[in-house]
């Protein structure tokens, strides 16, 4: 492994992405819009009486945390790695004495840092204006950090294996749009998963998408019983393993195919 080169790459990507900070700010703003809309929908809806035990300030807290979690875990690699494969600049990655995974990690980390410079201040302003109510314990904070890290890894590797489908099909990015739609529906964006119809709720708690966004949010806001938290971690870890295995399989056979038919 070439950590020295990888670290330099992260710093460079960050510097280069700072050049397009306004682009990232607009992008980050775009990603904030759907959760913000549902924040207002649910706070208004829960004004007469709490819905599923959540009051308006608790909905505000849920969605503000969700905005942060969504931004932190968003899988840019879907697009950056996919483009690199599609546009043929993968060659220059492969010619370097360094694992191409570093390139994906570099753009991921660099992008996150640039976007946080926008998202954190905006979230603080929203929190001041909208007055969320969040009661949480130190244990929940720690558990949320763990859940958030695995959520990020899960979404990263999940995005990566999907991105690697670009080795086979140039229009594979259509699948990425499908993935975004599933996250919107099943990960707790359109509504907290507990509010979904029971069949959808079951599906949501089995599929990986909830564990990319909704799960760490609910761990922090204390909406889950401890047994649910424990089960959640097991399912999340299982999906993470699946994602890593899928990534390795797809990457390897994709690369084999790439070196067989040329980029």
């Amino acid at each position: 492994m070439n950590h020295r080169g990888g670290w330099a790459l992260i710093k460079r990507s960050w510097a280069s992405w700072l050049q397009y900070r306004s682009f990232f700010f607009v992008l980050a703003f775009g990603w904030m819009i759907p959760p913000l809309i549902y924040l207002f929908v649910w706070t208004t809806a829960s004004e007469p009486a709490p819905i599923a035990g959540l009051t308006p300030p608790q909905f505000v807290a849920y969605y503000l945390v969700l905005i942060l979690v969504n931004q932190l875990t968003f899988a840019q690699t879907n697009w950056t790695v996919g483009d690199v494969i599609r546009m043929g600049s993968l060659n220059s990655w492969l010619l370097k004495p360094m694992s191409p995974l570093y390139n994906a990690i570099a753009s991921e980390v660099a992008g996150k840092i640039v976007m946080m410079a926008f998202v954190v201040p905006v979230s603080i302003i929203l929190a001041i204006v909208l007055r969320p109510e969040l009661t949480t314990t130190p244990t929940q904070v720690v558990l949320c950090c763990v859940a958030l890290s695995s959520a990020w890894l899960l979404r990263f590797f999940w995005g990566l294996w999907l991105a690697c489908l670009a080795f086979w099909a140039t229009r594979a990015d259509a699948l990425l749009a499908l993935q975004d739609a599933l996250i919107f529906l099943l990960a707790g964006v359109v509504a907290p998963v507990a509010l979904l119809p029971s069949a959808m709720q079951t599906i949501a708690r089995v599929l990986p998408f909830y564990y990319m966004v909704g799960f760490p949010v609910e761990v922090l806001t204390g909406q889950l019983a401890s047994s649910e938290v424990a089960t959640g971690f097991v399912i999340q870890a299982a999906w993470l393993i699946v994602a890593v295995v899928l990534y390795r399989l797809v990457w390897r056979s994709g690369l084999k195919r790439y070196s067989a038919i040329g980029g």
Partner: protein
Amino acid sequence: MTNSQIQVNHLVKTYQVPVREGGLRAALRSFARRQYDTVEAVRDVSFSIEPGEIVGFIGPNGAGKTTTLKMLAGLLHPTSGEVRVADHVPWERRPEFLRTISMVLGNKSQLIWDIPALDTYRVLGEIYHLTSTAYQQQLDELVELLDMRELLTKPVRNLSLGERMKCELVAGLLHRPQVIFLDEPTLGLDISMQGRLRRFVLDYNQRHGATVILTSHYMADVVALCPRVMLIHHGRLLYDGGLADLAARLAPFKLIRVGLSNGHTDFSPPSGVEILQHEDDHLELRVARAAAPAIMAQLLNTLPVIDLVVEDPPIEAVIDQIYQEGAAVLKTAEPPTGASEEGAL
């Protein structure tokens, strides 16, 4: 094995080119059941290159040049055959191997568009684990040779094509590779920039004894840089040897330009002479190489000649002839004495 820097034996590359229509449905279908056409891009190519050689790799578009280079650089896995570059099997892509080679593609950039090239170089220095002294020294040397210090700090997108190519070369050579693959390095550059890059490649080769394989469609590149050329056509190595020999072998004729004294416009060609051009008192003739002396003597005796020039046909014309007519030209051409035969040296 010999101490050749590059050793290629019976290299074959057969492409499976996917055939499918666009669209998501076709994409999904092609996951399950793929359909292919077979293209023989490289057929049984063998050669070896010694350390420090500069070899020109020429051939028409789609001849298999880039495919061969990609196999040598480890980007493509051959269908069959053996390759060793700097004592490594390229497609294993070992870090030690990747640190010894470099591939510069004239039509692809490895620089980041929106930041100065210097930032990219710093990262490359780290990726190749250069010490800061080595990094500075190697960067300074390249910058000096290419006379480009003022370009280092400008965002790449503000550079002209020629300036960008200079930056690409620095990026490719910063780690001081021993084997360099240059694919169309002068593509789209103006004449003086082409000349400058040629001198640079030659300088670099002489300083560091690096082995260079260069592909180019500009014959001036090949003439200026490559004592040895390899000509590939339809995936076959048709010729491997000196450029002058290639011309002699392919174009067994000479061009004779004759100026006649005032007003003398009558000319009936002796047998074996082909008139390429006849304008007033200027003639351009093509004659068989062997017959040239006799025909010149005859011209001098029978015509009021005031000027006479004998030339070899331009290399472009020779190359064009092969590109158009393919292997047949080489087969019918008589090999000159002493010229190396095709295949391994």
